[in-house]
């Protein structure tokens, strides 16, 4: 060991206050979460294999039967693939968000969060960093789902800009939805219960939506729920952006209204669950 040099008196060092520093801290912590993700590659199963398995299952097992229910002109297995893919995208994203809650739950017990709390960075930064790192997982979901769909015969019917808009919108929604998972993760006592609680939320939300079958085939009381369900809004918006006039949107819904409602839900979810997550984080010691 050599003697450590302290070139300035302890604690008196002036630290430059650079601009956007909180954003930079969030980036540093996002990188930390990415390193953790890469070190445990099995964490990528839900964003790689899961969308492929779902696409294969729904396309080959249910596609033939469900395709016929889509109505004149749109039917058949291929017609169902067109209908299914934007929906599966939203469902996989909702499922993918479960793991951030689980990771947060496990992470916060380990003491490294004590270190973060003792540093002069914004309180929310460790959480924001974790959510930002999820961006890459969501991007993988989108690329793999659309890429594999392409192999099965899915084609984007609109233009490249609409494709980018659809991807951006889906990821935007995912980053908001992740805060629900963060909140649940901070509230639960074990990582296992995070999964249980999130599944209770994700399954009804994704199935009772326009994800798999048209809304008009459902009973009236269910339609009422499906129409306000945020997942329906994302699915309809992505469908509209990818398929244009082929989108088979419910009566009264246009791409523009679905996009508008999606953003409203993104804002709503953030307004409710970001403060809830922060409160749970501050209280959890």
């Amino acid at each position, binding site marked *: *060991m*050599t*003697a*450590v*040099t*302290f070139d*300035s*008196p*302890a*604690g*008196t*060092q002036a*630290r*430059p*206050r*650079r601009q956007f*520093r909180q954003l*930079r*801290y969030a980036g*540093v*912590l996002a*990188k*930390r979460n990415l*390193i*953790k993700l890469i*070190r*445990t590659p099995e964490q990528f199963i839900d964003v790689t294999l899961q969308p492929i398995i779902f696409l294969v299952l729904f396309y080959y097992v249910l596609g033939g039967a469900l395709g016929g229910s889509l109505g004149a002109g749109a039917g058949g297995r291929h017609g169902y693939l067109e209908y299914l893919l934007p929906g599966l995208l939203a469902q996989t994203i909702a499922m993918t968000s479960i793991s951030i809650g689980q990771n947060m739950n496990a992470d916060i017990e*380990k*003491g*490294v*969060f*004590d*270190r*973060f*709390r*003792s*540093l*002069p*960075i914004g309180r929310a930064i460790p959480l924001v960093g974790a959510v930002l790192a999820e961006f890459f997982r969501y991007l993988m979901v989108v690329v793999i789902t659309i890429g594999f769909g392409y192999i099965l015969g899915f084609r984007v019917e609109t233009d490249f800009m609409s494709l980018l808009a659809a991807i951006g919108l889906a990821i935007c929604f995912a980053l908001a939805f992740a805060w629900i998972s963060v909140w649940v993760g901070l509230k639960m006592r074990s990582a296992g219960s995070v999964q249980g609680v999130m599944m209770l939320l994700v399954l009804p939300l994704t199935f009772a939506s326009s994800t798999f079958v048209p809304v008009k085939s459902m009973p009236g009381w269910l339609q009422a729920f499906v129409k306000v369900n945020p997942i329906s809004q994302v699915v309809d918006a992505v469908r509209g952006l990818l398929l244009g006039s082929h989108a088979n949107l419910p009566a009264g819904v246009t791409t523009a209204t679905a996009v508008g409602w999606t953003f409203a839900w993104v804002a709503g979810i953030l307004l409710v669950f970001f403060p809830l997550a922060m409160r749970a984080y501050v209280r959890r*010691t």
Partner: protein
Amino acid sequence: MTELSIEAAGLVKSFGETKALRGVDLNVRKGTVHAVLGPNGAGKTTAVRILATLLRPDAGYARVNGLDVLSQAGRVRESIGLTGQFASVDEDLTGTQNLVMIGQLLDLTKKEARARAAELLDWFDLTDAAGKVAKHYSGGMRRRLDLAASLVGRPSVIFLDEPTTGLDPAKREDMWDVVRRLISDGSTVLLTTQYLEEADALADEITVIDHGQVIANDTPNGLKRVVGGQRLTVRAADPAREDDLRELLTLIGGSVPSDEGRGTLTVPVDGEDVLPDVVSRLRAAGISVEELSLHLPSLDEVFFTLTGTRSTGDERTASEVSV
């Protein structure tokens, strides 16, 4: 009056029904090592967490470097370093990545952070393990990395929460050396410990707490004057000689030795100078011994002397029963 780095008064904190702190006062002079001594559950960690801005007290106030830990928490965090009871390093990151991350969160540029990380890794003998994931570090290495992480920002006040709990004796001495070097650097250190030996070896002042209350506050020498200095512990190889041994120890220590069980006898003595005398007397009496040691009073003995009751809320009590 000397400048205080830490001043706290009337700290109260409850967790549900449990009263962790019942009005703790603490004054730590600048540039000194201050030990908070107490058993598990005494409130040591709670006190440190309040001072390090991680917990809000229910009542009372605390200032670090003259800054209020509640209303000026952000500025307090700029000048403190915290090493927790459970090494708070990121297990999935390498030693270097851990330290660089902290550096960047303290506004160092990537280059500065790398340089500081290398410097600290070298200082803590971790250069060889710098590229290894902390998960594969030994307990002692993790503690050192944790301590290094708390020093990245050159803090003027350093909190060490039970830095040696769970370390073997050799590693404990290493950690003591590190703490001594920190003070020579001008930092103020608040250290919590369960060992009087550790507090005595490192601290300028010791605050003893139990059940969330301060029961003594003194210099190591002052405290030892109250609880007594060294203890001599001897166990006869032949249980039949126990009475002879007791007689001999009474003569040496001037009081009747206490029976620690299994033929182990303990008596307070004046200092280590008695040791040669003890050995020659044992030889003269023809008593062979299995154990012969000089040590400071255990925490249990300290508490017994200070409060007249055995400390509670401690697994020490449970293990004592089973002995």
